[in-house]
């Protein structure tokens, strides 16, 4: 069966050129980049070359790039590293309610360690009002960390406006750009951020390579102590093939960005237009200020995991923010934050298009999706509406 991958926000296959670039570093140029003989020196050179193209993708300088092993690590590093480096100046941090778990849960850890954290609300589209940032500031504020684009609802946040506020007050601004880098232009100068997290597997690079951008001169306390790798800011023997792969993927992403965006946007719009023709299907996230390949919905009266499974049975791979589709069995806090009631959040489904998505794929999807909705509604006790629904809070029986 032909399969149609519409879950590019979860991860991506390696681009063939990326794999090719990585292969020599597994067995031939296997040296430790700290070593002073040939296979080590070659590995070191390759890392520095990768640093250049990785930096170029976000318009940074090579020395502003610290390689990490995941976006989650970059986010943990940014929040803890900045908090610890600046705790003498103050102990208040601002994040949004729609941050990724790797930001939210790090913020909670910092709360336990004596920091105060403000969790900013968002509007019905998931957008932050920069005025809310301003209002949340206290004399103790040291760091603002706001996601650049939401993987769940595609919303692109007004980082430039928030940066103006941060600059005015001399505060440090971090953005989690894991879902945006490689999908839309991301320029650290234009955004005006001091730190930015991104991960290679979001743009056809390898899993196991990611980076934290730290503006030149910025002080950060390491998350992983040890040797002098990454200028002493992130220890551990470098994952050379993965870093090389990230460099190559960054190079391709920079080269092809406009083309990739233009292609997926047209197809995505077609998908959204068609999906909204079915009754009681709502777009989540902003209609305009969203990632070009991102379509997300709630479908009333049915549940997300069931949709995913039936779609998968038809060869279509996608994601959901429903409780049942998450291992934590909790509906996505992002959907709750934008005011979707919990029973509707169960009907969440997210489609993210990518480089290999074709018009034919979308035509097939557009045919299949309404069929699956109607099939599941045919089973649902709520097919005619939510009448008779019980209470509005959920305590899972154990």
């Amino acid at each position, binding site marked *: 069966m032909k399969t149609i991958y519409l879950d590019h926000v979860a991860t991506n296959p390696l681009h063939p050129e990326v794999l090719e670039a990585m292969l020599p570093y597994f067995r031939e140029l296997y040296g430790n980049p700290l070593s002073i003989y040939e296979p080590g020196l070659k590995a070191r050179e390759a890392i520095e070359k990768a640093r250049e193209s990785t930096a170029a993708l976000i318009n940074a300088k090579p020395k502003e790039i610290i390689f990490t092993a995941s976006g989650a690590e970059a986010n943990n590093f940014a929040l803890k590293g900045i908090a610890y480096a600046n705790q003498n100046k103050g102990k208040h941090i601002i994040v949004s309610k729609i941050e990724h778990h790797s930001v939210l849960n790090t913020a909670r850890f910092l709360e336990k360690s004596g920091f105060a954290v403000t969790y900013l609300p968002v509007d019905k589209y998931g957008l932050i009002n920069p005025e809310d940032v301003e209002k949340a500031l206290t004399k103790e504020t040291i760091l603002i960390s706001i996601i650049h684009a939401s993987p769940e609802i595609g919303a692109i946040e007004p980082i430039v406006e928030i940066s103006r506020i941060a600059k005015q007050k001399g505060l440090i601004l971090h953005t989690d750009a894991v879902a945006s880098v490689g999908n839309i232009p991301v320029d650290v100068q234009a955004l005006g951020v001091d730190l930015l997290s991104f991960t290679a597997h979001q743009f056809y690079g390898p899993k196991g390579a990611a980076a934290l951008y730290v503006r030149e001169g910025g002080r950060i306390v390491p998350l992983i102590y040890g040797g002098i790798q990454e200028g002493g800011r992130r220890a551990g023997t470098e994952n050379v093939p993965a870093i090389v792969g990230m460099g190559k993927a960054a190079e391709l992403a920079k080269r092809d960005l406009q083309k990739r965006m233009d292609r997926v946007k047209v197809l995505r719009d077609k998908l959204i237009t068609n999906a909204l023709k079915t009754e009681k299907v709502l777009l989540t996230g902003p209609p305009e200020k969203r990632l070009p390949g991102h379509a997300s919905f709630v479908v009333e*009266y*049915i*549940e*997300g*995991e*069931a949709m995913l*499974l*039936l779609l998968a*049975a038809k060869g279509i791979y996608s994601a959901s923010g*429903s*409780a*049942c*589709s998450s*291992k934590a*069995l909790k*509906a996505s806090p992002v959907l709750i934050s934008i005011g979707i*009631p*919990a*029973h509707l959040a*169960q009907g969440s489904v997210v489609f993210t298009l990518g480089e290999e998505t074709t018009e034919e794929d979308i035509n097939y999807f557009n045919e299949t999706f309404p069929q699956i909705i109607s099939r599941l509604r*045919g*089973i*649902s*006790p*709520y*097919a005619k509406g*939510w009448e008779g*629904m*019980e*209470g*509005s*809070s*959920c305590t*899972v*029986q*154990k």
Partner: protein
Amino acid sequence: MYSAKVMDHFTNPRNVGEMPDADGIGTEGNPVCGDVMKIYIKVSDDKITDAKFQTFGCGAAIAVSSMVTEMVKGLTLDEALKITKASLAEALDGLPPQKMHCSNLGADALHKAIEDYKVKQGK
């Protein structure tokens, strides 16, 4: 993730639909949690002669509903009351642990349907 049997009952659910002339109806779960099952039974001589379901929920919930409606047909009410979460999961060749409690509501809905029947019968 799911056994072949779960996938079979999920993709080809048996006994789907309303039963306007049901003798007993039981609903369990809450859409806020993600799973609701509504089980309809027809009873004659203390035996369940037919069963149908409507379910809002994940793959496991739908498969459990299909399975429980298959299993009860022909059972006496007492026999049907012996169906448990565990026996349903076993009949489906197992369920992922995290689905055992939140999506495996078939036994509870069934028991409620039998209860409903008994109440209606004034028993």
